């Protein structure tokens, strides 16, 4: 059965391996050039590093976007073109009646096909991930945050591909028609990825916390929204290359404050600062204004009462998170594969 499954999957597998080889050659040529640029422009820069970095990034702009796109759509394509038709095409063409009446049980048929094409999916996606991650390593070092490209780098891509493939196979088995199964697979895959990014990934690891004085915050303003009373707004981020999950403004007693509580503080302690209520930096350019000194005094006072608590994932948790998310998607893939197996052996005729 393995030989026959390979006969059926041979063309698509070899085609994508050839495409990957082409991509590899392109990546090798441009990648070597890029790493020379990195060495000459960025690695040893003493001053004017921002300018050097900008020049370095401008050399890679278009290709870098192409590679990011490939890393994003690769697993989806595997799900659509390898997963969804795996069983659906047989059911649609009636060839399952030919296959299932050979001297091979349905059980073995579906396990072999899922195993072989599933393995090919993981290998192809893994090679794609390796190429993209290797090629982008210089750019990723220069860019501020590794977590920003979390789902387009590293081993998670192989997990996404395994999931996309298995869920496609399952959907194809249930829907029994290739094209609707492809569309549904894309929708389910995209939704799962978006949901993971929004609701799952931030909660996978317990974050570190740090306390940041308002005076060292990235942003610290007196602001009012929709004509409500003036309040204090501030934002800070975690250490470099970490993933900032949340910011809380905490008072000296250690309680998280609401906007209304902070407005009360402003009203009580700095009644003189008022409208226009924009950031002090905006006033600085316009010269000394009457409210400015009052605002400065109030900022000092506020920074004594409030501070920021930042929750973040440290840079060194990156690969832990990658493995964890890989594990989740491989588990989801296994669930979908078992569903496909069950449906083929029990529900389909």
């Amino acid at each position, binding site marked *: *059965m393995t*030989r*026959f499954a390979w*006969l*059926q999957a041979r*063309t698509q597998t070899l085609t994508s391996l050839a495409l990957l080889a082409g991509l590899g050659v392109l990546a090798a040529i441009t990648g070597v050039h890029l790493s020379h640029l990195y060495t000459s422009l960025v690695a040893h820069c003493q001053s004017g590093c921002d300018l050097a970095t900008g020049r370095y990034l401008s050399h890679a702009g278009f290709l870098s976007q192409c590679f990011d796109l490939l890393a994003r759509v690769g697993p989806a394509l595997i799900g659509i073109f390898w997963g969804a038709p795996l069983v659906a095409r047989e059911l649609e*063409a*009636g*060839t399952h*009646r*030919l*296959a*299932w*009446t*050979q*001297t*091979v*049980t*349905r059980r073995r048929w579906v396990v072999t096909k899922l195993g072989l094409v599933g393995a090919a999916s993981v290998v192809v996606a893994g090679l794609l991930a390796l190429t993209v991650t290797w090629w982008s390593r210089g750019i990723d070092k220069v860019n501020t945050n590794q977590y920003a490209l979390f789902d387009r780098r590293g081993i998670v891509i192989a997990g996404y591909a395994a999931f996309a493939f298995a869920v496609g196979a399952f959907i194809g088995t249930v829907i029994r028609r290739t094209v609707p199964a492809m569309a549904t697979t894309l929708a389910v895959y995209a939704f799962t990825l978006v949901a993971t990014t929004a609701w799952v990934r931030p909660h996978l690891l317990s974050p570190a916390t740090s306390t940041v004085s308002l005076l060292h915050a990235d942003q610290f303003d007196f602001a009012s929204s929709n004509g409500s009373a003036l309040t204090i707004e501030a934002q800070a981020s975690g250490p470099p290359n970490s993933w900032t999950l949340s910011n809380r403004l905490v008072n000296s007693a250690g309680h998280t404050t609401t906007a209304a509580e902070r407005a009360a503080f402003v009203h009580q302690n700095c009644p003189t600062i008022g409208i226009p209520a924009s950031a002090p930096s905006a006033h600085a350019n316009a010269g000394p204004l009457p409210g400015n000194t009052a605002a400065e005094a109030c900022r000092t006072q506020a920074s004594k009462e409030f501070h920021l608590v930042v929750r973040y994932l440290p840079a060194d948790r990156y690969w832990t998170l990658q493995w964890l998310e890989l594990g989740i998607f491989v588990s989801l893939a296994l669930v979908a594969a078992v569903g496909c197996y069950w449906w083929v052996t029990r529900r389909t*005729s």
Partner: protein
Amino acid sequence: MTSALEAVSLGKRYGHHWALRACTLSIPAGRVVGLVGPNGAGKTTLLHLAVGLLEPSAGTIEVLGDRPGTGPATLARSGFLAQDSPGYARLTVGQHLQMGAWLNPRWDGGFATRRVADLGLDLRQRAGTLSGGQRAQLALTLAIAKRPELLVLDEPVASLDPLARREFLQTLMEVVAAHGVGVILSSHLVADLERVCDYLVLLVAGRVALAGDVEELLASHHRLVGPRRDPAAIPSDQVLIESSHTEKQTTLLVRTDGPILDPAWTATPVTVEDLVLAYMRRARDGEAPAASGLAVVR
């Protein structure tokens, strides 16, 4: 000797619709069985149950003494040709034979290669570009080279032109003669089956309306023509299947194992087609439930 197919109260339901119900059949091994019936009578359902593509909703079915589709051993014993002879459009004829060799331990490669050569098929041609007749022949070759004890063919000639039809059935009869393999083939056209079958099963609306050896069926049924009279008055050893009347004349189709003694009747033999049509009408008009229909045959 085990039967080719043994069904007891076999039923298959799709949702609320029974495609096949209360089907009790015993088909002897080594016969060429014609499964006839109008479209939607449950022929395909019965054949799919016989090769293990479907599971019964009620009753039991055994093929060559085993429950079908339970493992490689039972799969190896029957060869199936599905309706429209599906093949992998993008694989070549040669790759189909390769598939047969890989997936069937009892594969007869010599036979397959010879047959494909006899048919004039190019091994490098893709199955998707074959004509309907060629595709059916390729599918038949695959089913036979598997060396099954029973060949199950679902409407194998339905989509073929008359010439291809004749060639296909000829191949089939050659194989039956050479290997003594049993065959069950379905068709909604009696004419296709008349020439090749020695056993007949008629399905109407999911029930068995008639089943038996063709020669016995023909010998025990008579068309009687005589002066007009009440059909209820026939002798007790005769079973009335169908009657029609003109002003002066009565025509009956009766089943009996005894001779026709009444000199008022002119008895003529019936054809398979006559029988099938008569029993189909009888089943359709609800004059005889399946069980008593079967009793009549026995």
